[in-house]
C-alpha cells in the first residue's frame, strides 16, 4: 500500500479540570505570575458578562451574546497578541477585546444599537464585531496577506465558533493561508453548539482542527478551558506566523454555559444535564484551584477583586447608559468619505423632518 501523506492532530492539555497539572507544562506559562493577571481578567470578563445579561433582561441593552465559559480561551488569545497584530472577533470575544484595550462601554454601545461601539479604544487596525458568520476569518486572511506582502512580522488572528468552521469563508481562509503561507491564526472556539445545532451535526470530521489539513496548515486541538494550553497553542501558532512558516488552525475545546444569546432559550434543544456536566470543566474553577494551591490567590483576594470588578463594570455601564443617541445625520455621515449629492439631499430631508433644517 502506497501512502501519499500522513497526518496527526496533537491535543494540548496541561491544567486538568481538577486544577492540577496533568502533563508537564511549558515552565514559563505555568508560572503563577504569568497566570494571575489573566485569571483576574477572566473574573472581570465574567462580571461584565453577567451584568450585561442583566442589562438586557431589564430592557437596557439589545440582544447580547454571553461568553460564559469561554473566558480562558478569549483572554488567552488576547494575551498572546501584539498591539500591531490584527484581531478579528465574531461577537462574543470580550475577553480578547478587553486585553487589546477595547472598553466595556464600547461593547455595550454596539449591543445597545449604536455603531460608535465599533469606533473603539482598541488598536485602530482591529476589526469590529462581525455578525455574518466566519467572514472575519477570510478578511483576516487579507490582513495577513498585507503583513506578508509588506514584510511585517505581524499576525492576523481571527476567531469563529464550531458552527463557523462549517462556513465556506472559513475554508477559503484555510485555503488562502496555505496557498500564500500567511501569518494567519484561525481560532475555532468549539463550544459544542451553534445555536441549537450540536457540533456533531456540523461535520463528519473527528476534530475541527483537522480542517486546516485541507490547506496544509498547522493544526492543533487544545483544551480551551486550560489557560496554559491556550497560551501554549497560541505561542506555537504565533511563532510559526512571525517566522514565515505560515498559518494555523487551533481548535479550542470549551463549552457554551449560557444560552446562545439573550434571544435564545437553550432548554428547547439542549439537555440541562449536559450543561451541568460542563460546569465541571469550568476554566475559572481550575485556574483558581491552581493559583490558590500555589499560594498566589485567596478567597479574600477574590472577594475584593470581584467587588472591584463590579465597580469598574458599573462605571462602564453608566457611561454607556449616559451616551446620548446619535443625531439622525449619523446615518449619512459615515457612508462615504465624499458625500454624494443624493445622500446630501436625503440628509437634509431627514434633518428637516426633525425640524432641524
Amino acid at each position, binding site marked *: 500500500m502506497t501512502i501519499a501523506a500522513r497526518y496527526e492532530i496533537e491535543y494540548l492539555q496541561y491544567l486538568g479540570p481538577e486544577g492540577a497539572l496533568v502533563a508537564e507544562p511549558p515552565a514559563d506559562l505555568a508560572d503563577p505570575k504569568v497566570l494571575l493577571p489573566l485569571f483576574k481578567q477572566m473574573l472581570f470578563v465574567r462580571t461584565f458578562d453577567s451584568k450585561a445579561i442583566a442589562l438586557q433582561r431589564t430592557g437596557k441593552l439589545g440582544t447580547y451574546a454571553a461568553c460564559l465559559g469561554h473566558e480562558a480561551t478569549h483572554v488567552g488569545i488576547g494575551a498572546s497578541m501584539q498591539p500591531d497584530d490584527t484581531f478579528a472577533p465574531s461577537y462574543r470575544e470580550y475577553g480578547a477585546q478587553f486585553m487589546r484595550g477595547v472598553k466595556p462601554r464600547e461593547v455595550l454601545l454596539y449591543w445597545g444599537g449604536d455603531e460608535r461601539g465599533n469606533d473603539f479604544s482598541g488598536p485602530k487596525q482591529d476589526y469590529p464585531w462581525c*455578525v455574518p458568520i466566519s467572514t472575519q476569518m477570510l478578511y483576516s486572511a487579507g490582513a495577513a496577506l498585507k503583513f506578508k506582502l509588506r514584510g511585517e512580522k505581524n499576525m492576523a488572528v481571527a476567531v469563529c465558533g464550531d458552527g463557523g468552521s462549517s*462556513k465556506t469563508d472559513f475554508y477559503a481562509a484555510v485555503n488562502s493561508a496555505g496557498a500564500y503561507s500567511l501569518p494567519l491564526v484561525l481560532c475555532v472556539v468549539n463550544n459544542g453548539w451553534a*445555536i441549537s445545532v450540536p457540533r456533531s451535526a456540523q461535520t463528519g470530521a473527528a476534530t475541527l482542527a483537522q480542517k486546516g489539513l485541507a490547506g496544509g496548515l498547522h493544526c492543533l486541538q487544545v483544551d480551551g478551558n486550560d489557560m496554559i494550553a491556550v497560551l501554549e497553542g497560541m505561542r506555537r501558532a504565533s511563532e510559526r506566523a512571525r517566522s514565515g512558516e505560515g498559518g494555523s488552525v487551533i481548535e479550542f475545546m470549551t463549552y457554551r454555559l449560557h444560552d446562545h444569546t439573550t434571544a*435564545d432559550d437553550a432548554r428547547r434543544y439542549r439537555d440541562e444535564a449536559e450543561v451541568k456536566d460542563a460546569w465541571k470543566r469550568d476554566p475559572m474553577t481550575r485556574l483558581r484551584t491552581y493559583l490558590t494551591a500555589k499560594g498566589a490567590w485567596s478567597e479574600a483576594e477574590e472577594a475584593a477583586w470581584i467587588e472591584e470588578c463590579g465597580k469598574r463594570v458599573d462605571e462602564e455601564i453608566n457611561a454607556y447608559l449616559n451616551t446620548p443617541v446619535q443625531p439622525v445625520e449619523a*446615518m449619512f455621515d459615515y457612508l462615504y468619505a465624499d458625500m454624494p449629492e443624493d445622500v446630501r439631499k436625503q440628509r437634509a430631508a431627514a434633518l428637516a423632518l426633525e425640524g432641524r433644517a
Partner: protein
Amino acid sequence: MNQAQTMTKIDPNASTPAAITLIEAVTQALAYEMRADDRVLVLGEDVGVNGGVFRATAGLHAQFGSSRVLDTPLDETTIAGLTVGLATQGMRPVAEAQFDGFMYPMVDHIVCHAARMRYRTRGRLSCPMVLRVPWGGGIRAPEHHSEANEAIFTNVPGLRVVMPSSPQRAYGMLLAAIRDPDPVIYFEPKRIYRAYKEIVPDDGEALPLDVCYVLRDGTDVTLVTWGAQVKECLEAADRLAAEGISAEVIDVATLRPLDFDTIAESVSRTGRCVIVHEAPKTAGFGAEIAARLAEESMYDLVAPVERVTGYDTHIPLFRLEMKYLPSVDRIVTAARRTLAAS
C-alpha cells in the same frame, strides 16, 4: 392569473379556527403541504428541534422527523446548493435563510442555477424550490438582521420574488410558492410577524402569485407598497381619509413578475401614485413601478410620482432604525404633495 385579487373577507361565523399571526400562517402552510406532498421538505439553520429562530418551523420536526426537517451545517452557500440539488432531483425543498442579511452567499446558486436550470436544459431539469427569508427592519435586532434587499433578485429572470403581508396571504402564497414549478424567493416581513391575527382556514387553498392585492379602494391617490410597509400605508390611508382624501392601497405581493396592470388601472383612476418601500431608494424595486408609470401611464398622471423609501444608506443599528424606515408621516406628506400638484 394576471388580475387583482381583493382581500377575502372571512365570515367569522362559518367555521371558527383561531385567528393566527403571519408567522403562524407560515408554519401552518408548511405543515399542510408537508402532509399533502411527501416531496416537500424543510431545511435551514436551527429549523429542526429548535423550530427556527422565529419559530416558523416550530413543531415540524416532531411531526415529520429528521428526513423532512433538516438542520443544515452553518453555511448559506451550502443551504442554497443543497436546495438546488434537491429541487433538480424532484424534491420540493423549502429552505430558510435565517435573516435577510445572511442570504448573500446564496445569490450564486440562485442566480446561476435555480433561475437557469429550466432554461439551460430546455426544460429537461427544473428547480421548484422556495427560499424563505425573514426580511426587513424594525425589530431592534443586531446588525445584518434588518435588511430590505429584495432588489438583489428583482432583475433576475427565471425567479419569482414574493412578499406576503398578512396571515392569509402568507398562508395562501406560501402554498402557491411551494407548488410553483419554478424557484420562488419568499420574503417574510418580520416586523409584522406577530403584528396582528387573522382567521386562516387550514384548507390548503393557495392564493395566486403574480398578482397585486388591492387592500383598500380609493379614488384620489394610489399607495403602492409591499411587506411591512403595508401597515404604514393602511394607517396613512386612515389619516388621509380623515382629511377627506381617498387613498387606494395596493400590496404588490409579487414583485417579479410584476402585475403592473392592477397598478396602472388604479392610477388611471386616481392620477396620483406614491410608492412606499423599506429598501434604499436608488434602484430599489419602487423604481421599476415608477418607470412603468413613466412609460405606460404618463397620460394618466396628474402629479409626479412619489417614492417614500428607506434612505440611500444602510439601515442603522436599532437606536436609530425607526428614523430610517418610511413613516406614516412621510407617506401622508407625500400623498398630500401629489394632491397639491396641479
